[in-house]
Structures are given as C-alpha cells and as structure tokens.
C-alpha cells in the first residue's frame, strides 16, 4: 500500500507471480492488511456461509480487477473512485443474483452481507493499488491471490468458530457428541475472540521462522526471474 496514486500509465510494478504470492500471505487482506473486517466478523459462524462469501468476493474482485485494468488508460484521476465503485457495484449485483438463483438458501442466510461486498475495502484497494496501474494479466493474478488470501482468512476463522461452537465442519459432525458446544463462538463475541487469537498466532508465527521462510522463497523466485 506504499504506492502513490498517480496517473494510470503502466509502470513497472510487482510481477504477476509476486502479486499472487503477496495476496495469499505476505499481504493477506485479513491477517496482514486487516481489511474487509465486516464479512470477516459477520459471516464466519460456520463454514458454508464463509465459503459462499469468499467465493462471491472472489468473483467480484477478479472481475472488477480485469475491468479496471482494461480501462486503466481511460481513467481520469479525479473520477477514478466513481468508476471503481460503479464497476464493483455492477459485479456485486450480478453475484447477488447468481447466489439467489443457484444457492438460494445461502443467499437468504447472507442477506444484506452480499450487497455489502460493494464497500469491502479489499476490492477497491486492489483496483487502486494494482488494477488501475498494471496489465490485466497481473490484475488477474492479484485478484486470485487476494481472493485466496481472503478465503483462507474467512475459512480459518469459520473453522475455529464452527468446530468449537457447533462441533461441526461444513455441517458434518466432527467432534464427539459429548463436546459441549461453546455457544459464544457462533455469536458475535466469538468472532472477535477468534479473529484476535488467530491474528496473534499469525503475527507471532510470521515474525519468527515463517517470515524468513516465506521471504527466502520470494527472494529466490525474484532472483530466478531476473
């Protein structure tokens, strides 16, 4: 997020591969950027709504990245946010209708959270940081990487909450029937507790070994390409 907003001319930025890798962990939207907290907290009480939300967000993010990247040469700096929002809103509406047509029960359960994808900062920040400055190929890789990172974030929180709160995973009983369901985990406080604890674990892990391992890989790929 260090890039400055300038005109929309192509310039050397991170490569497609770097964008993809960054999205998954080094710049994970949830654990590293702390963006998109509303769906993160609201729809992670079980795996099914979390995965549906992650898929809908991925669809919108990848499509809007492609669209914004295709028109990046035509963007006027002071009207760019309007164009981003218009593009994102269109794809969100399409996603909303697709869910209502093909996964009706999930569409009902997610209710207003699907239209709220419009204001998910993950998406508009990718339009601003990557898609409006780089080629469609890079924008697609960025969209897929960020979507994957967002999906991993949602799924990890939902796994903890559904397992501890209902003893199930994707609705299937995993823990023994004697497990006393921790009701609080499926309620809003459970979302904050789980997010806080997982954030702490990720932070702790990446500061230690994991961080150096990932950076070694990235550096290796970098030197291999150049």
């Amino acid at each position, binding site marked *: 997020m260090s890039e400055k907003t300038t005109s929309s001319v192509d310039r050397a930025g991170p490569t497609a591969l770097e964008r993809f890798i960054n999205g998954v962990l080094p710049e994970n939207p949830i654990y590293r950027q702390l963006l998109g907290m509303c769906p993160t907290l*609201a729809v992670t009480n079980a795996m099914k709504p979390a995965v549906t939300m992650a898929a809908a967000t991925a669809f919108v993010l990848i499509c809007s990245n492609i669209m914004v990247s295709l*028109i990046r040469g*035509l*963007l*006027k700096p002071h*009207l760019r946010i*309007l*164009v981003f929002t*218009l*593009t994102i809103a*269109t794809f969100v*509406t*399409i996603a909303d*209708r*697709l869910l*209502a*047509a*093909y996964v*009706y029960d999930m569409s*009902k359960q997610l*209710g*207003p*959270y699907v*239209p709220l994808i419009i204001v998910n900062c993950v998406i508009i920040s990718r339009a601003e940081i990557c898609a409006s400055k780089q080629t469609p190929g890079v924008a697609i890789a960025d969209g897929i990487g960020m979507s994957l990172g967002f999906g991993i974030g949602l799924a990890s929180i939902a796994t903890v909450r559904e397992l501890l709160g209902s003893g199930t995973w994707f609705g299937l009983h995993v823990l023994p029937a004697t497990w006393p369901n921790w009701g609080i985990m499926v309620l809003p406080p459970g979302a904050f507790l789980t997010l806080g604890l997982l954030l702490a674990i990720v932070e702790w892990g990446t500061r230690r070994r994991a961080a150096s391992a990932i950076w070694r890989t990235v550096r290796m790929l970098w030197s291999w390409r150049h």
Partner: protein
Amino acid sequence: MQEDRNRGSYIGQAWLVILLAALYGVALAGVQSTLSGKIEQNKKAETYEVMPDLVPGAQPGLSEELTVMGKDGQEARLYRAVGAGGRQVGWLLPAGGQGFGDRIEILIGVDTQVSTITGLYVLEQKETPGLGDYITTDAFRQRFRNAPTDRPLVVVKTDPSQENEIRALSGATISSESVAAIVNRALANCGAPLRELAAQARPGRQGRVESTQ
C-alpha cells in the same frame, strides 16, 4: 485547444462514467432477465414449504396458485391454501414494498374469510444486520398472528393495547412500520376480491378463478 475544451465540458470529463453506466445497465438487465425465472422458482418453492406454518392445516400439495384482480386494477398473484379433504383453510398473499434498506418481500397468511392474519413470513429483505433484520425472527413475526384485518395495523412502541397494534422492534422502527404497511396495503388491495371468492367457493364450486397451476 481540443484539450482545453474537453477539460471544461462535463461530457469530456464524464464520458467514461456515462458509457460504463449504460454498459453495466445493459449487462444487469441481461443478468436479471436470464436469472429472474430461476429466482422466482426458488421463492415459489420456499412459499410452498412454509405454507403450513402460515396457514394452519394447509397442505402444499393440494394448494394452488391463482391471480385475482386487486383494487389497484392490477392482477395480484396469490395462493389458495387447501387442507385435508380439499377444504380451503385460508389464503397466502405474497406482498412487497420498500423497507429501510431495500425492498422487503413477505408472505401473509390469512383465514378463508380474510378476517384474521394467521402467519407472516419474510421472503426477502436486506435490512440492517442486527437491527432491522430481526423482522425475520419468529418473535417479531408472531406479533402479527391473530391480528384482525378489518382495520389497518398500527405500529406502537409500547405494549399493544388494541388487537390491531403491533409492537415495533427496538432500533428498527422503520423496518417494523414497513412490514406493517406492506401488510395493510396487500390486505386493502386483495381483501375484498378474496372474500368474494371465498363466498362463491363455499357451496362447493371452484369459483371464478383463473388458476395458473
């Protein structure tokens, strides 16, 4: 020169926004017309599923869809709820209107004479999570059960003293009032034609209905 003129004109500034808006509009119209049939089908399936809750004794398999001419001069689509032995037990009216966030679509169950509300169900809503979306809860929907239909429902913020009073949800007065207004409008629109139909059907005849199923 050209550059200067463009900088000053609104079209020169906003042509991309206008073009994209038109393009997206066409795309959304295409998506809507492609998927609306499937979405309606999903809603209809859910309507039949919840019918026994909203009209006691109704058997979805026996019930049928029909259209009546509403007071507003437009055809209204609704369901004749039929129970065991082919006896009509009530009506189920789909209705909709503007809520706080977006359009709210509900199902209203009434008895055959359209004198009492027997159940209410929220088919679609996008009200504020944690406040307005409580209109979908059983606790709120129960407040409509057994309300009379001879006078409009009134939303109150204290314990109801009259039968036609509905207690609002705390923090979601507009959502509560929207639901009550949708119910009032639907019953005012279809109440009379349905009573007429019920009176005709009583001697055992089917009545003058245009069945769509």
